[in-house]
């Protein structure tokens, strides 16, 4: 009788499978299960009470949740597009520099090196209406105003977006710069010989080559921004009057402050749709962009 042996590929993958199951799969299944319970952190026994889809029904009919959902989509769209445009501009300028480019690249990356919590505190101080740098600068220039940067709905979202963009534009800049380095020189030189203007070369050669890099950056950043928490929590805490409430500030308050982890997990599963939709969208765009420049397959 021959001994049955596990296939080698499975044995080789087994440590990874065990680790992934322990740190991803089991918590995922557990959190999915708990979203069907009234689980409260302070009352562990509630974990075993099954309430079916009650939490999901509560969320689907909750205008506050959907307002936070919509605000997150808006915030994501604005922040991502501005970061992309600014990152593209910075990358194009850095690419033109012929002396000290390495130093410049390091400087561009500085904001990425700060913890989001510190960035949040920094901009909370900068935008404080009473003692903040911006209002003090305005007042010293003769404007007798104290703009409520972190209170007014539009200004508060702008202030948070400003902090987020300040911190993360360099992600786009660095990835796009890598794309610029990878562009073959031949088509650009051929275009020059054919009499194309710099804008035409950029529009029809450089940009299509950069699009795969832009979409990779978009995919990574969309997941980052969709779970933006630290900066928002520090700067406004989602307020005032829910004017800057994003999905993660709402979920963290529900789960950790109110201790309603079952409800918070249900919110998490509904909001995952957002990340999935953005990821699918950008991957499709990425595939199309790669096809356009002959990189498919």
């Amino acid at each position, binding site marked *: 009788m021959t001994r049955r042996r596990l296939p080698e590929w499975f044995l080789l993958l087994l440590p990874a499978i065990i680790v992934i199951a322990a740190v991803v799969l089991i918590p995922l299944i557990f959190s999915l299960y708990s979203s069907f319970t009234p689980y409260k*952190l*302070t009352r562990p026994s509630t974990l075993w009470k099954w309430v079916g889809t009650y939490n999901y029904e509560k969320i689907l009919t909750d205008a506050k949740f959907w307002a936070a959902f919509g605000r997150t989509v808006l915030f994501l769209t604005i922040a991502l597009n501005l970061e992309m445009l600014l990152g593209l501009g910075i990358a194009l300028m850095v690419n033109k520099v012929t002396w000290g480019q390495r130093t410049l690249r390091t400087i561009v990356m500085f904001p990425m090196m700060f913890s989001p919590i510190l960035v949040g505190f920094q901009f909370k101080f900068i935008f404080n209406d009473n003692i903040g740098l911006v209002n003090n600068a305005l007042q010293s220039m003769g404007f007798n105003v*104290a703009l409520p940067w972190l209170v007014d709905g539009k200004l508060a979202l702008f202030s948070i977006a400003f902090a987020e963009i300040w911190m993360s534009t360099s992600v786009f800049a660095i990835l796009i710069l890598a794309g610029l380095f990878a562009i073959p020189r031949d088509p650009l030189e051929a275009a020059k010989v054919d009499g194309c203007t710099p804008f035409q070369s950029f529009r029809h050669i450089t940009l299509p080559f950069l699009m795969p890099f832009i979409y990779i950056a978009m995919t990574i950043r969309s997941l980052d921004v969709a779970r933006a928490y630290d900066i928002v929590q520090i700067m406004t805490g989602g*307020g*005032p*009057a*829910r004017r800057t409430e994003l999905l993660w500030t709402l979920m963290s308050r529900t789960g*950790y402050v109110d201790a309603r982890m079952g409800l918070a997990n249900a919110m998490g599963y509904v909001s995952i749709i957002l990340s999935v939709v953005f990821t699918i969208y950008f991957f499709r765009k990425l595939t199309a962009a790669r096809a356009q420049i002959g990189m498919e397959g």
Partner: protein
Amino acid sequence: MTKSNTLKVLLASAAVFAVSESALASDWGSFDGVTVEAKLIGGQQYEGLYGRIADWEAATGAKVEIISKKSHFEIDKEIKSDMAAGTTSWCVGSNHSSFAPQYEGLYVDLNGLVAAETIAEFVPGNIGASTVDGNLLMLPRAQFDVSVLYYLKSNYEDADKAAAFKTEYGYDLAVPDTWEQVKDQAIFFSDPPNFYGTQYAGKDEAIVGRFYEMVVAEGGNYLDADKKPIFNSEAGQRALQWFVDLYEAKAVPAGTTSYVWDDLGQGFASGTVALNLDWPGWAGFFNDPESSKAAGNVGVAVQPMGSVTRTGWSGHHGFSVTNDCANKEAAVSLVTFLTSEESQLAESAGGSLPTRSAVWKANVAAAQAGDDPFRAESLAAFAKGAEFAFAVPAIPEWGETTNIVYPELQAAILGDKTVKEALDDAAEAVDELMRESGYY
């Protein structure tokens, strides 16, 4: 060093020496080889008390291992995670009267574990607020909080200002005794963006607590006997309208809706706020020239009254012992030591209000006999203010209700909703929470 400062240093040194001697002399038990793990509130103002732990260690032979030191809000989150994970075998936890009711089954009932005569030495109101469903969940620390009115004295010493005020409002300008007078004067004193009449905490539990005490001052209440929300009454609307009126008149900083305690304290200390309802811990800070531009110009008065009564939303810190603690006797000894008369004398010397009757008396007597009229004035105001103090409802859902209510209060203040709409929406959501929690 001035004569007065020299005297203070000598008195403080003598007190610390006496306290250390006393700690060694008291019978705190013998716990050789025992290690008590503790999760304590962190902050410079609390370090003096923690410095005394060495005395308890020397007296008992036990060791204290501080495994966490954070703000109460952070400790609260950590404790909830511990409860969920079942990792609650540490022994002593910092607690707060607002947080205590939510930790179901976490902490022991100290009745029976602490001598009845010891419990009787605390202010009965503090023991009442530390008791949930008949269980004494913590021993109150010398950190009792009730707010009184701090004001800039110079505003009441200017004859032109007084005359202009009388012409505009028809009554004499004096330190306000009612919330209506606070509103009038705050609007009168304001010169935004350089100077503001007053300010208030505008988010989280902070604004709900203020709103709560003003609802009661207006003759209403937050919840009824069945725990049903009733703050959307006419009294509640009058209370919220006060916040709205001040905001609309620009008598408070525009960012006040994002302020909590530190922002308020720093704001008054900057000398740009005329009237400030605030906690006892700030008294010394406000009158210290090194930390405050208002120093020397600070007056302290009992909190103003509403149209019906004078009130004070209050709370206090405390220390609790977990049910899962391996050596409860040692933990109870440590908690008793940290809240002892000696500990409270040492801690309240820094400006906080004690929770033991004898320490109150000692502090008031020392202030009256001493050469610090500001300390005497503020202690007298706090002693009076404490008479109107009440604790928040002892229910696990208190914190959650505040998370529902505060965005609605902000919506009214910022003009997104009318006062009635905001309160009705908040009451409806709190009502749903209370139904879900099984109160009715």
